[in-house]
């Protein structure tokens, strides 16, 4: 597992450099064609990038979480989700528990955020908590913790900032070239010499953002597969995540508060359309059906090499999906079999309802609702804005007194 992180860090450096070239090259060319001095262009490009990185680094978490309207919960607020996260923390060997947030939204989704392992956060929607059983929830939590552990959050954040800087630069560049630079070029003469620099500059302005976008998306998808594999490794029960993905994939409710900046961080692309087929090159996440198939094909070998084998099996001719160094670290012996799985508990109607109530009640309590249990079995939940000293139970007529805020 250490290997994975080191590998991730090396990749981050390589990627940043590669994307950085996408920034430096256009910047320099722009400087050369417009101002006759490429070094100024380069400096400006770097400046843009540095500023955006600093802003992103220091603001990161709070922007994301406040966009999504999340409440933080403690161990007593919702013991089940807290325990599930704690179990995964132990299974993957993390030192500190991440902060846990619940997003009040019926759509099912989850995400992880945070710069390093000691300051990480994990958020799940109330819809997810209601509709998944414990094993499925654990699969999802395992996937998100894997993102934290593999420093994917850091990786993708840096990439998206770079991407943003590239796009911005290209936009500025194209404006200048077409509306400012070109006219000045022709008036000061120079003809062919200028064209030699102008054409590639224009080409770069157009293609750099597109190429950078594709690279970014490809990286994002690879990290998703890795997170799925890691989740199976931690839980030793890939069916949990597979079943959860099925449920989440089937739901068509759009997550209300997602926007383009936060989309890659979610477990499922919040902007997917039902039956979207052309997802391969244009999405931050691999297709759900694909992920489910690979997980189910693991058939008892829940190591990373097991995931790799399942992937290769289903993708004749496709490249490998698990970084080579991670496979090496595992060693050659196939890992422990899926441990003692008694047949998964099939949920009854009552359990589904109880689960939904647990989740809702936690949210009511966090929003300062008063809970009153009437003797007839009805439970009344009173919002903080309620004016009145008494409330009559609508089912049996008993009067209850309401505590003022």
């Amino acid at each position, binding site marked *: 597992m250490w290997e994975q992180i080191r590998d991730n860090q090396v990749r981050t450096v390589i990627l940043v450099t590669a994307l950085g070239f996408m920034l430096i090259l256009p910047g320099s060319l722009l400087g050369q064609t417009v101002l006759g001095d490429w070094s100024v262009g380069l400096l400006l490009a770097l400046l843009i990038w540095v500023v955006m990185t600093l802003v992103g680094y220091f603001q990161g978490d709070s922007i994301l979480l406040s966009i999504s309207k999340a409440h933080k919960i403690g161990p007593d607020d919702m013991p089940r989700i807290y325990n599930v996260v704690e179990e995964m923390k132990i299974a993957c060997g993390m030192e500190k528990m991440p902060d846990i947030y619940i997003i009040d939204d*019926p759509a099912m989704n989850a995400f992880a955020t945070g710069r390093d392992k000691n300051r990480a956060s994990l958020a799940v929607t109330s819809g997810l908590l*209601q509709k998944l059983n414990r094993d499925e929830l654990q699969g999802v939590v395992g996937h998100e913790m894997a993102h934290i552990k593999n420093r994917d959050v850091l990786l993708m954040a840096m990439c998206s900032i770079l991407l943003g800087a590239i796009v911005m630069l290209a936009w500025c560049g194209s404006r200048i070239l077409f509306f400012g630079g070109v006219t000045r070029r022709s008036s000061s003469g120079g003809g062919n010499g200028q064209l030699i620099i102008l054409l590639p500059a224009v080409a770069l302005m157009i293609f750099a953002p597109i190429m950078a976008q594709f690279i970014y998306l490809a990286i994002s998808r690879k990290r998703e597969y890795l997170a799925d594999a890691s989740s199976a490794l931690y839980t030793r029960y890939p069916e949990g995540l597979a079943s959860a993905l099925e449920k989440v994939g089937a739901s068509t409710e759009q997550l209300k508060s997602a926007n383009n900046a936060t989309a890659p961080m979610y477990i499922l692309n919040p902007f997917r359309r039902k039956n979207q087929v052309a997802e391969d090159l244009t999405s931050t996440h691999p297709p759900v059906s694909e992920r489910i198939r690979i997980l189910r094909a693991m058939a008892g070998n829940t190591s990373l090499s097991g995931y790799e084998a399942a992937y290769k099996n289903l993708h004749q001719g496709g490249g490998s999906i698990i970084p080579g160094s991670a496979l090496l670290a595992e060693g050659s012996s196939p890992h422990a079999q899926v441990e003692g799985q008694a047949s998964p508990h099939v*949920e009854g*109607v*009552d359990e*589904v*309802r*109880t689960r*939904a*109530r647990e989740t*809702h009640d936690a949210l*009511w309590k966090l929003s300062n*609702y008063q809970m009153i249990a009437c003797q007839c*079995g*009805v*439970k*009344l*939940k*009173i*919002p*903080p*804005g*309620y004016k*009145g*000293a*008494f*409330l*009559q*139970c*609508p*089912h*049996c*007529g008993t*009067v209850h007194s309401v505590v003022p805020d």
Partner: protein
Amino acid sequence: MICPACKIPMIVVERNKVELDCCTSCQGVWFDKGELELLLDPLTGSIAGTLIENIMGLPPAETTEKRLACPICRQKMKKVDIGKTSGFIIDVCNSGHGFWFGEGETSKLIAQLLNGKPEDKDIQDKMLFFVGDTLRAGLINRESINTGGD
């Protein structure tokens, strides 16, 4: 949840592990789609889905009642008549977020129950019975209780 008619916060009434949002001022009830699923078929939610689609597909009712906004998405809701023998007009969200029963309707449901004549033939009846039965003692708090005196 805010009452679409009175714009004040509604209380939540949980019975048999299913929640209804009720307004103590106008006796209106919001039945959320998620809760309807829990009532009718928690394991798949498809029965509730079908019921909602059927009701959404009904033609708009001819009425002069003011159109209300869905408490979840704030879009204007459609008025439909789901009554079989007599008129029974409810508001349904065009995105299928749930149903709103105004005070006239909830009073009718309660009256039906107390007269011993609830219908029980299909899923829709089941839903209506649940609402009526939960509110059988009435929701509007009498003035004397609310102000704690007189």
